[in-house]
């Protein structure tokens, strides 16, 4: 990138900065909704899957299949049912969240040392207490790693939301592409990348904190 094009990009960015900020907020909200609702739905499913592994395996398989469907296709499937706007977009994001959170929740809970669970039970912990005081806290770093994957992925996939009219930074990216306006594309794409990196770092920090407390090298 030459100095000239850099200054043209910066001046363009300055021109549309409020618009970018507005779209960025939309983008964050879309992503957050996706991650939060996705995690909230997948976590109990994951716990359930550890208790009933036969049914659980089906759930893991199905969400795994959904995970491999291209994002554009998922959006396309959703449009006839949910119409345009943020709803199909969030729905797509939720579907993408399921597999990593579900798989990591299962793996995390199943990896808890059986001696530790037995100790808790032997001390008179109820099944709920074993879950909330032992299994979930110990599985936390692994579950967190799943959520972290999902967060990074979601911020990227949320860009597609623009195609369904959900707004977000994808609007700049796609209009930029169709108008062959590189500055416009970049002004949308760069904040997406930064957001993804930040989310990754932040959640990595939380994950490692929890790990190091338990004496696992992060």
């Amino acid at each position, binding site marked *: 990138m030459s100095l000239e094009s850099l200054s043209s990009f910066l001046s363009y960015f300055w021109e549309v900065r409020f618009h970018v900020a507005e779209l960025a907020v939309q983008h964050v909200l879309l992503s957050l909704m996706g991650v939060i609702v996705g995690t909230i739905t997948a976590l109990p499913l994951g716990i359930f899957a550890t208790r009933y592994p036969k049914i659980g395996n089906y759930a893991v398989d199905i969400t795994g299949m959904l995970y491999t469907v291209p994002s554009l296709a998922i959006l396309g499937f959703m449009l006839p049912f949910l119409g345009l706007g943020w709803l199909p977009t969030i729905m797509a994001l939720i579907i993408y969240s399921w597999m990593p959170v579900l798989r990591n929740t299962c793996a995390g809970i199943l990896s808890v*040392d059986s*001696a*530790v669970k*037995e*100790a*808790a*039970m*032997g*001390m*008179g*912990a*109820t099944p709920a*207490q074993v879950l909330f*005081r*032992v299994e979930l*806290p*110990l599985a*936390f770093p692994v579950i967190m790693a799943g959520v972290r994957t999902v967060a990074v992925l979601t911020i990227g996939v949320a860009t597609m939301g623009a195609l369904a009219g959900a707004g977000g930074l994808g609007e700049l990216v796609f209009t930029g592409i169709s108008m062959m306006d590189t500055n416009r594309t970049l002004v949308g794409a760069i904040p997406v990348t930064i957001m993804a990196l930040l989310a990754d770092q932040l959640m990595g920090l939380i994950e490692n904190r*929890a790990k190091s*407390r*338990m*004496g696992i090298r992060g």
Partner: protein
Amino acid sequence: MENTVIDVEFQNVSKYYGKEKVVDEVNFRINRGEIFVLIGPSGCGKTTTLKMINQLVPHSSGQIFVRGKNVTELDPVELRRSIGYVIQHIGLLPHLTIRDNVNFVLQLQRVPQKKQRERANELIKMIGLPDSYLDRYPHEISGGEQQRVGVARALAADPEILLMDEPFGAVDPLTREQLQNELLRLQKTIKKTMVFVTHDMQEAFKVGNRIGIMRRGQLVTMGTAMDIVNAKDDFVRAFIGREAVFSALDTIPVFQAIIRDCPVIHEGDAIDPADPRFKDWENVFVINQNGHCLGYVSLTDFKAHEKVTTEKLREITSPCLPSDSLKKAIGEMLWGKRAWLPVVTKEGNFEGIVSFQSCVSILALDD
């Protein structure tokens, strides 16, 4: 023993895993305040037996009573909360500090914070670790320290019964001995009913009031250290081994081996070396009216019927108490190059003597 309360009782208890019978018609009664040791080769069903007491493993047949109540009629959570449990693999919660680990049971029962804090401080003192350890995480302390914390955690709610599954399994022999001593010291004050699993015979002799030996799911022999070393069963004899007998000596008290019929005369009496009472004896003990021993005389010093004078009276040295261990007595004999030791009570009453022979003979009652 009079008025003994039975805290744990097994009546024909068996456990099947599928078709395999891993615990086979086991019967025992454990008295309040007693340390009952379960020992046997790996896989013989010790842990399973222990876990049936707090119903972590439900039994297949027979009946189990804890403090007189049939365990199947109790709420398992309540049952477990009333019994301390030290598991075979320590099982400290790695995400919690030592304080929270120790207080885990109290937290489950929602005991007020203030009480928890006090209890944690008490317990850490009890197991001999510094207060500052309370804020550490399990991976920041040594294996032996973790095992102590495991014991402290089981004691937190002050249960009457304590189940300990190889509580000192993961430490070097020296630390292990230290932990055993600490446990015995602790037991003097807390007086819990303990079921203690180990596969170390020396440990069994050291900590156990009674010992049960298991083999392939069956309880083969049960009894005191004395009973165990006198067992005739070939498996039991082979299992105990030669070295562990020394540890048994540690728990057998001198009074079991006292020779009480040694000749005694009263102060001021005359002595007749030809007295048939003195046949086979070299020494005669002199006691006063209160039963206190003044010393002894050697029969070779007396030619004929003659009065005992102070010149001829020999002082008794290093007497032992009836409650001393045989190990201590034998050690003293070896150390002092003596064939026997006088046994004198705390009050100074003469009880008899203990000799190498008397020690050996009680360990071979039936032969």
